[in-house]
């Protein structure tokens, strides 16, 4: 299966801008399905970006983050061609990891 994580990391001198989009339902636990039953909450709790073995950005999320969540941030110290590692884990214990090259 294709990765659930899409990343764009672009270098602009000393600063690297990172955008990520993750495929996840982010069910809030407040919605009912077609049968009128509540869909249980199902959401990413932690999303982590690492560079050189160190965290550069960590997101703690609740169910109020939109479906297929998006986040953008920037950090210093990396350069073109370097890799960053992205991983998430959700409230049901599912997870995914990928790496992306800075362009």
């Amino acid at each position: 299966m294709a990765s659930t994580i899409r990343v764009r990391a672009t270098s602009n001198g000393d600063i690297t801008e990172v955008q990520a989009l993750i495929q996840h339902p982010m069910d809030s636990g407040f919605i009912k399905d077609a049968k009128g039953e509540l869909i249980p909450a199902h959401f990413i709790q932690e999303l982590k970006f690492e560079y050189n073995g160190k965290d550069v950005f960590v997101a703690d999320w609740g169910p109020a983050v939109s479906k297929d969540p998006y986040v953008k941030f920037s950090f210093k110290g990396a350069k073109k061609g370097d890799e960053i590692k992205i991983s998430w884990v959700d409230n049901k214990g599912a997870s995914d990891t990928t790496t992306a090259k800075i362009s």
Partner: protein
Amino acid sequence: MNATTGPLATRRLILQGAVTVALIGLGNLPFGIAPARAAANDKYPEDAFKQKSQADAIKALYGKTAEPSDKIKLDAPEIAENGAVVPISVTTTLEKVTSISFLVAENPNALAASYRIPDGTIPTIANRLKMAKTTNVLVLVEADGKLFSAAKEVKVTVGGCGG
């Protein structure tokens, strides 16, 4: 317009009362499978996410109160095109920022997202949040051990407690 029928009627967004909310929250939080974190202060702030009110969430997350700051620029639409996807971003000129959190006052649980900002990361974030109705979006910036805030009202005409 939600006057759809049949299989398309997937957006019956019913904001339950507090009791139901609490039950669901507890019912689905998996105990014991939270991934191990390196340090104690690195833990997923489960308790803060469970709080209903903004004040309680802030207390659980930071244990202190915030003061408004004009060094925080919170960008959010006046009118959300759809409460399910509200683009919100923040940037600040405050120094030594260690974390940034977003709260939506009238969501069932106020805390929406909290970001840890290590050294070398620029305190600028964009994300997309759900909003149940018209209310204030509050951003908290923890800088040099102190807590600062900025808020903006976003009008929501199509509620976004949905997916």
